[in-house]
């Protein structure tokens, strides 16, 4: 077997054009799901919260279904729902079917990631002892101040490795966005490959791009972890 190097170079250049799309979906997904996840984690941590059950149901629903199914399901469901809500209920005249598929992708991945991330946040928040909150309250801080200044900074350090895997997972999952006609790295490569049946070459290129992206993410998180966890280190 002989790899077509020229073709690979061409595909690389073209697939690289898909990188911004992949990153955009990943970053938007993380930014949107983080506050949602945090809200859900708090609902589950605070005692006697009625919404905890609802949140738990949602999380098991997401965890118990394959992401491909979620994508196909929500991608069929969302436009219909949006159409019904805006055009039928509110009587607006939005062209739902013209919405950029990237937005659908972000919506679906956010729904998924929020559930995963909320478990990451919950376990991290629970790893910070109750004594930290009590000491903050005794110092006169309000609950919100205690969370912002004492508990979240400590929980974040604990959560970072899992947040990192979540980001990496989202990044990889975005390769499924082609199912929603999004022109990301994967979609571009598939299209190129289909021309001359150069699938192996095309996939090899995609593989290399994803490895590079994921490595960069991991390096960023490692640096972040090093700087945020300074307080845990003992002096030599």
């Amino acid at each position: 077997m002989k790899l077509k190097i020229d073709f690979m170079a061409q595909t690389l250049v073209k697939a690289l054009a898909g990188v911004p799309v992949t990153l955009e979906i990943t970053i938007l997904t993380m930014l949107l799901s983080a506050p949602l996840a945090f809200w859900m984690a708090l609902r589950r941590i605070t005692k006697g919260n009625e919404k905890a059950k609802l949140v738990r149901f949602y999380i098991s629903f997401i965890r118990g279904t394959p992401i491909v199914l979620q994508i196909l399901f929500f991608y069929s469901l969302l436009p219909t729902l949006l159409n019904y809500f805006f055009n039928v209920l509110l009587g607006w005249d939005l062209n739902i079917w013209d919405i950029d598929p990237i937005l659908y992708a972000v919506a679906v991945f956010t729904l998924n990631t929020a559930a995963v991330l909320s478990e990451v946040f919950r376990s991290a928040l629970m790893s910070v002892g109750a004594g930290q909150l009590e000491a903050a309250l005794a110092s006169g801080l309000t609950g919100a101040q205690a969370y912002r200044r004492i508990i979240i900074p400590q929980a974040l350090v604990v959560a970072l490795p899992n947040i990192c895997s979540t980001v990496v997972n989202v990044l990889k999952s975005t390769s499924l966005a082609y199912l929603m006609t999004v022109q990301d790295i994967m979609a571009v490569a598939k299209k190129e490959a289909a021309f001359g049946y150069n699938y192996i070459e095309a996939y090899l290129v995609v593989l290399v791009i994803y490895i590079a992206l994921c490595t960069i993410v991991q390096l960023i998180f490692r640096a972040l972890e090093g700087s945020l966890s300074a307080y845990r280190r003992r002096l030599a």
Partner: protein
Amino acid sequence: MLELKNIHKSFGKNHILKGVDLSVNKGDIIVILGPSGSGKTTLLRCINFLERADQGEIVFDEIRTPMKTASRHQINSIRKRTGFVFQNYNLFANKTALENVTEGLIVARKIPKEQAIKTGKEALDKVGLSDRYDYYPSQLSGGQQQRVGIARAIAADPEVVLFDEPTSALDPELVGEVLQVMKKLAKDGTTMIVVTHEMSFAQDVATEVVYMEDGVIVERGTPRKIYSKPEDPRTEQFLRRVLRKDYEYSI
């Protein structure tokens, strides 16, 4: 100055505090003794609203606060007038010694940063940690951590400082340094309520010793009275048990 009236607290079906009254005057050093499970920690936590009492009233300089229904605002104002020293120190792990002390000053009391740092350093100097301002809790010994805990509790110059067994999590050789700091505070006129098993502290500095058992105050009096002729047989029995070892040294 501070008065607690008829405090009740249950955890589920367990009635832990069964009507506790306590009155504290400025400069008082009240030591609370009692067997494990008698509700000493629960009492201190109720005063600071870390636990919500089911019944009772706290009167702070004529301001009456019903403990069960106290508003967030009332709770916060009581917390700002008290300091709390925890058994397990509970220092903010992500903050240096100095930041532990200044956090409440800057964030809760809105004291300008420079002034808070000055006050914080003074508090740390007072507990003998002038050379540890920038150390994180993980870089300090247990005794040093507890002294930071004390500095944090006294920095805002609260009217009462509550101590919950401040030395019982410490290695024996570290107990002395913490007790010494507490004795110094006592001499400076700090009002304190101290739960402790350190009999020497109670005997040397307490203005009043309170014996608690089973959620009620059984007996109270000067240390001299409580230690030499306790009136209640339960007090006597408890003291005999805990002092058995100490007697060998003191007599």
